[in-house]
Structures are given as C-alpha cells and as structure tokens.
C-alpha cells in the first residue's frame, strides 16, 4: 500500500500476549515521533481463540486495518495461526514464525489434525519466501519465563530492521509498561529475539 507506512500483522492464540506486544510496539513508535495505529479485537477473541492484531507505523496510516497482501511483516506466535494469516503478507514480505505448537482443542479431541511443519512452510511460501523460523517458547523459557514469549517476538521484529523502531525505544516502552519484577527477564528476551533474527537473516 503506501510506501511510507509499515504494516505489521501479529497473529497468535489468546493469552500469548499478542495485544500487549502490539501496544508496546506502538508506544515505542510514538516515543520516536512516528504516527501509529493499532487495531485490536477484545472480548470473545481473547478466550484462547485465534487473535490477530495490527500495527501500522508511518504518515499514511489512518485506519487500523491492514488489507490482504499489504503486510510488510507477519509476526506468528504459533505455526497454524501464522499460516491462517499468510494471505496478509505482501509479496516478498517477511514472516517471523515461532515453531512452538499450541494444539487447538479440536486436535486434542481428535476431530481435526495439526498440519505437519512442511505443509505450514509450503503454505506460507505461496505468499512469500522470506520466512524466519525459531522456537520463541524455548527462548522465552531460557530468558526466564514462558510469559516472555511476546518479548522474544518484540526483539525479533526489531531484528528484522523492517520497522523504524529502535531497540532503545522498545526497551523503554517495556520498562514503562511492566512491573520491575519482570523487567530483567523481559529485556533479556527482547535482546535474545533481536539477536536470533539478526543471525537468521545473515
């Protein structure tokens, strides 16, 4: 769409911290004086269901919605939920994919099957070849808490270099938003995410 706007789509499962990540990104963007819009859906969507959030940074952003084929960055917290939103990515857009699986109940009940990793990657490849895959859950636990999953993804987003958000602004936003108790874990997670993606991108 507008070349002066970065469109980010974040897809995951309710409870993974998708909304919080979007808010932190936007706060960081605003603190660096960028125009920004966040689109979120609350209510029913939060109860363990599929959650999608959008963040748009740049002068051209007016509304919160990102159209299919116009996302510069698709941030996937979970494999199937990433593939579900793959049509949002623009050609040659970048996909961050956390490989940690959270099984939908339909799969646990044997009413549906979970697609193998290859099928997921092939599905995303229909839209873009630029896929960066890593297990953000393992990294979050390494940072100190499974709840820091979204902070790994925050670092990963910065690591792509596709947004104007600096690591400093992101970390400041993290500091200003969460309690001191988890600060060191969160910041560690952001840095781990960034490094991971920078290495993958090399």
């Amino acid at each position, binding site marked *: *769409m*507008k070349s002066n706007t970065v469109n980010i789509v974040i897809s995951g*499962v*309710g*409870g993974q911290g998708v909304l919080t990540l*979007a*808010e932190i990104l*936007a*706060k960081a963007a*605003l603190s660096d004086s960028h125009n*920004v*819009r*966040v*689109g*979120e*859906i*609350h*209510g*029913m*969507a*939060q*109860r*363990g*269901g*599929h959650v999608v959030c959008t963040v748009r940074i740049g002068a*051209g952003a*007016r*509304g*919160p*919605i990102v*159209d*299919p*084929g*116009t996302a510069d960055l698709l941030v996937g917290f979970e494999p*199937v*939920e990433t*593939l*579900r939103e*793959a*049509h949002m990515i623009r050609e040659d857009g970048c996909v961050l994919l956390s490989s940690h699986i*959270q*099984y*939908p*109940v*339909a*799969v*646990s*009940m*044997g*009413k*549906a*099957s*979970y*697609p193998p990793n290859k099928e997921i990657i092939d*599905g995303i490849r*229909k*839209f873009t070849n630029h896929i960066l895959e890593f297990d953000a859950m393992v990294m979050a636990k390494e940072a100190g808490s*499974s709840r820091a999953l979204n902070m790994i993804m925050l670092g990963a987003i910065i690591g792509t270099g596709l947004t104007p958000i600096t690591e400093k602004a992101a970390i400041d936003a993290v500091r*200003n*938003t969460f309690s001191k108790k988890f600060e060191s874990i969160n910041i560690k997670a952001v840095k781990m995410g960034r490094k991971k993606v920078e290495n993958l991108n090399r």
Partner: protein
Amino acid sequence: MTKPKQLLEDNVGKKVLLLANESIARGVLEAGVRLVALYPGTPSSEIGDNLTFMAPHIPNFYFEFSTNEKVAMEVAGAAAVAGVRSMMVCKGPGLNVAADPFFSLAYVGIRGAMVIVVADDPSMWSSQNENDSRYYALMGNMPLVEPSDPAEAKSMLLEAYEISEKLELPILFRTTTRVNHTRSPVTFGPIRDRPKTIEFVKEPFRFVPIPSVARVRHPWLLKQMELAMEISESTKLNFITGSGSLGIITSGVSYNYVVEALSTLDIDAETLKLGMTHPVPEKMISKFLKRHKQVVIVEELDPFLETHARRIAQLNEIKVDILGKEQGFFPRILEYNPRIVIEALSKILNRNTSINWKAIDQKASEISGLPPRPPLLCAGCPHRATYYAIRVATRGKAIYPSDIGCYTLSIAPPLETADILFDMGSSVTTACGLAEVTDQDIVATIGDSTFFAAGLPGIANAVYNQHRISLVILDNRTTAMTGHQPHPGTGVTGMQEKVPPLNIAKVCKGLGVEYVKTINPFASLADLVAAVREMTTWTRENHKPSVLVSIAPCALLEAAERRKTGKVPQPYYVDSELCNSCKRCLNRLSCPAMYLDTKTGQAVIDQTMCNYCGTCVAVCPQGAIKQEDA
C-alpha cells in the same frame, strides 16, 4: 495499572497513545462530566474500566457500574435533568435494553448536558447482532455524533456536550468496534471543573410525561431538532476535504478507509465527512449533490446516509447518481476495510484495483483444512466443571437455555450445553416458555452479573407462574466476559468502595424460590453431578423452579492472584504408567491445557497453561491424573 493514572494527568498538550475508549474516559475529565453510569459491554468496556480507577481521584465525580443499561440510562438521565453533565455508556444491544428511558429523555429533555455513548459491533466480534444504532437517533429524535478515530472520540465528545447543552437534549454518540479498539496518538486538553452539588428545581409538567405533558413535549422536541439541523449545517464536525469531479459522502471509521483508498488509487475526489449524522445537514448535502454527477456513499451496515442523500436529492430535484448499497456497490453486513472501498471505487471508475486480491483470495482458499481455533472456556474455568456435571447428570438430554457471558462458549463440543439464547436474562425466561410446551428436563444457566442485570424478573416470573425449571447460577465473582468489572454480588463499587455484597442465594430465596442450594464446583465433581441430578428431580416432582448456585472465582482472577502472591500450587500431571489412552479427559472435558501426545497416544498437561483447578483428576477413570506431592 499505569493507564488510568496517566489519563488523570493535568498536562495540556501531552501526546499519548490511547484506545478510543481511553480517549473517551479522558474526555469525561475534559468535559467536566459530573456523573457516568454504565453496564459493561464490549466493545465499550474499557471506558468504564478506566473511569472506575480514575473516579476516586477526581474531585466531585461519581461513577457507577449500574445493574443494567436501562438503570444506567435513568441514573445518568436524572443527573442531566437536574442540571449537570452526565454520561451513559453501552454496547449496541445495551441500547435496546435502555430504549424505554431513551425515548422519554428526548421528550422531557435535560437541563445540563448528556451524552449516550453506544458502541456498535459490525462483524459481531463480541455481540449477538450488528444492528445499527443510528436508527435510534432517527426514531427517537436525538442528535447523533460519530467519531472516526481516538482523537475525534475526545474532541467530538467535548463538542457533543456543547451541543447537548444548547439544545437541552441528550446526544447519541455512536462508535464502532474499529473506533473503540483502535489505538492512536491523542493530545490532552485542559481539565474542566465539576460542581459539587446542584439544586433540583422542580418542574413536573416538563419532567413527568403524562399524556398532556408529552403532547406538548413532542412538538418542542421537533423544534429542537430544527435547531439541531442549523447546528449540523455549521458545525466543524461536518466538513469537506479534497476536490474533484467525484463526490464521496462518508462518516465514522469508513472515513479513514476512504482517505486511504483515494491515496492508494491516487484519485481526486471531494469528500464530505459527516461527524454529526442526525440531523444531517440538508443544505450542505444538497449543495454537495448538486456539484457532482456521481456521489458515492461509504458507510458500514445499513444505508442510513444513503437514504438521506436519496431523499434530499428527490426533494431538491437534483440529478445525480447516488452510488451505494442499493445498487450493490457496498455490502450491508460486516465491517469495512480499505479494500472494500478500493474495490468499489475501482468498479465505479472502471479501473483495476491496486492489488490483485482475486489471486490472493485464490491462494488463500488453497490453504484449507486448518484446525479451527474458536474462543474457549479458559483452562481452569469453573464453568467447565459445572457444565461437565450438568451434562453428566442429565446425560446430555435436557434442554440447556443459555445466557450472555463467557459461559455461552459452552455451545462448543464436548460440553454442548447452550441450546437457546436471545439476550441478557433470556436463560430463565426461555426456560419458562420451553417448560410449558415440552416435557423434557430444562437446565438453564446464567452468570452472576447477568443474574443481577436481567435475571431477576425472569426468576420472579418462574416462581409466580410455577415453571418447572432448574437454574444453575454460575457465580464466578465478576463480570468476566467484558474484562472483570464488579457487580452487586462482589461488594465493590465503581467508586472502588467496599459495600455489603448482595447474596445470590438469599436473593433467590427472597424472590420465593423454595429450592436453593450452593456448591463449589471444584470441591468434588461427583457431588456436583449429584447436586444437579437432585435439583432436576426436585423440579420434576414439585413442578417449581429450583436454583443451584455454583461459586468459584474466574480462572483469570485466580491466575492474577497467583502472580501477585507468587504462591503456585503443586503441578498436575498425567502419570504415563497409568494412562491407558482412553482420551476421556480430552474428549469429555477438553481443557485447553491438555493435549494429546501424538507419539505416545497419551494425554499431557501443558504446565504453562494449567490453572490448577483439579477437575481433570476426577474425570480420569484410571486415576492417572495427579497432583505432585508437596
């Protein structure tokens, strides 16, 4: 919570990232609103969530979580009649609940100022319908204002209070989900003082609309709407941008999509953006229609502006092509996006879209068969235990009238305990109707907040008319669905004061229910099943209503409490020695914290998601699910 504190800052010119709902909460402060009353409803919930934390810090301010929307409308309406600035907030269906006082308020008018915020939900992200509240303004003769983003949510709110004061009429302030739940930069303005108290000056022949009064008030109201029309013609809320041979009329969130679409397609158009959409500025629209051969109307849901445009064109004999929903250029359902506007404009102007969406749709349709992930009752949700017991006790054969709250999610397999639902409180009353025309057992469920909001008249009805219904009240000590607001049973008010909580069991007894029992769903699953069985038997034998109150706090509250105290119970696990892969736990309980290990074929508990409720332990016939010893 840093947000509510930030919203209180007396820091003119400060730019912060706000949800439109937060922007409205800030607007309450800047407009000098004296009283706000509301019943929470997504997508409007965060307005109250912020105000309740702000309220104790604002001098001369009163905020309440009313028991329902009708109550809220009357509380706020009376305050405005007395002469202060007041606000009522609700979601779309909430305005239906409050419709009765809504119409009266327009007739009697107000002395102060009042804004009624109604949050519609195109696409029904969290509502049972996507009805278009703009028609209330039309039907009730109430001025209507519609912001398009968080910044306008505040600036237009301030303007709405000015208009309300001038006209002595409440203003309907309509938002949609994509406005309420968009975050964008908003600049703080000055905070306005509020009066401590005012004197209520009696004027019964205005404020008591007995027929003789109402007959005088109706023409008064129509005259006020003529004044409102003058305001609509001159207000800065209605403005024109751009130029070109193509004309576009739009309002609300759609305006953003129009701006983006024009920029993406790189076309010129003159856009009339309406912020005040009732009464519409007839002269302004008439002139606009005259200037163009083609005028496109872009608005979500029903053809409200479009119908006005056609009416104005006809009245003024204007020859213009008005293009909108009537010819099928735009849909009447679901929310819009830039794509819908780009596609419609491309079709009208006979050009290609900026992006080949057909190809994208085609590729997307090739990705099929993904496992669905609908919202679910949380891991450790007390409702899961209760519904499991209801199903077991009634062998899935009873009729299960449901109500509005998280627990409606029990519609999904394997619980499947939601059979009929109309609106808030309908669990009890639909049960009454079904009881008279079927001979099946009926077990209705209602949440605690919904019980106080709309369950009481139904229960009185069941007692009075002796309906043979079993009602399980799911008391999770909060209004969970909308984000954990307090209610009369919690003992906390909107002002953050501790008050005596209303006791649900006592209320039911007071209403005349003879059979009232209380149970903790996590104490013993077998006892829970037995309790449901006993109540249904009693109801059958006595042909009267029975009530079972199932009390345990929402799992999210428990989890938050654990995070606060740092006290974590011993983890639950599946003993792989004992598990024989029968999958009963997965198939009958389906807690999201449990999944099937495809390699071993055994059930596993995801420790990061488990909420330590222990329900699964009793579901396993092998005794394979255990809690680690301390």
